């Protein structure tokens, strides 16, 4: 069915199949367009719809909620400057999911604890930039704290 043999030219055109396949191509092109538009908007990585943040007391974080596995992610923490050094603690799942590659400014001390890492910065530090590489795909729910302020971060890492 749908096979045409045209005169002496032995060719199987399968015109019915070709017609159906054109429909598939149109749907596929629309899907590709939606995929690229979603990526541009930030639903598949960094972009306007990906930027998010969380605040708890004086602690604030800005980050992209959608990340790619193995690609650098940036997190910007802001904390109040207290009378002593500024502490930033990353907890549990965040450490499992992210490989912290760079911390700025340079912490004076890094203390590895049970399911947490404490970064201690010089007195007066209010802004800390972390760069990290997500290590596994899927949802990531982590926690960060500074002093008595504690906030949750929610990310999704694409494979």
């Amino acid at each position, binding site marked *: 069915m749908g096979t045409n043999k045209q005169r002496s030219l032995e060719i199987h055109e399968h015109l019915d199949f070709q017609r159906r396949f054109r429909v*598939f191509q149109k749907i596929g092109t629309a*899907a590709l*367009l939606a*995929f690229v538009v979603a*990526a541009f908007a930030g639903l598949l990585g960094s972009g306007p719809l990906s930027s998010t943040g969380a605040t708890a007391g004086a602690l604030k974080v800005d980050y992209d909620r959608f990340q790619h*596995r193995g*690609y650098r992610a940036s997190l910007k923490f802001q904390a109040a400057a207290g009378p002593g050094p500024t502490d930033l603690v990353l907890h549990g799942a965040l450490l499992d999911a992210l490989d912290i590659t760079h911390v700025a400014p340079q912490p004076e001390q890094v203390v590895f604890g049970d399911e947490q890492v404490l970064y201690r910065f010089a007195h007066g530090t209010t802004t800390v930039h972390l760069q990290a590489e997500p290590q596994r795909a899927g949802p990531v729910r982590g926690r960060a704290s500074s002093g008595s302020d504690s906030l949750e971060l929610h990310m999704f890492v694409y*494979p």
Partner: protein
Amino acid sequence: MESVLRAGAIYLFLFLVFRIAGRRPLAEMTAFDMVLLLVIGEAISEAINGANPSFTHAAILVSTLVLMELGFAWMKQRSPVAERLVDDVPLVVVDHGKPLKDRMKRVHVDESDILEAARALHGLENMQQVRYAVLERDGAISVIPESSG
């Protein structure tokens, strides 16, 4: 196991994207198409060999490039001006055995290029046997022999 899954996913993704793109885009293999395929290959190879292990990142790159190619093909189909801008236009460089020197100089084609095409395509021996030689849009020279038609 992850390597197998990764390679399989990339194979299926590329298969789907190139089936969606259809036969015409990337089929003519102009210099630009070749560069585009190299760029796609590079994006994919990073995802396959794990240098940049994000499949999503590679998929976005490939989808964007293929979609742009489809977009240009769509524009060319609807606008002769766009077609000229994107694909260039053919140019006659030999007319009834007479090389059109000004045109040949403009497009960096010399007589030996034309004679080579004439020998390869039709076994012609000299310029007098060439009715027309045309520099085609993809840069190839096509030859119509004096005896044809």
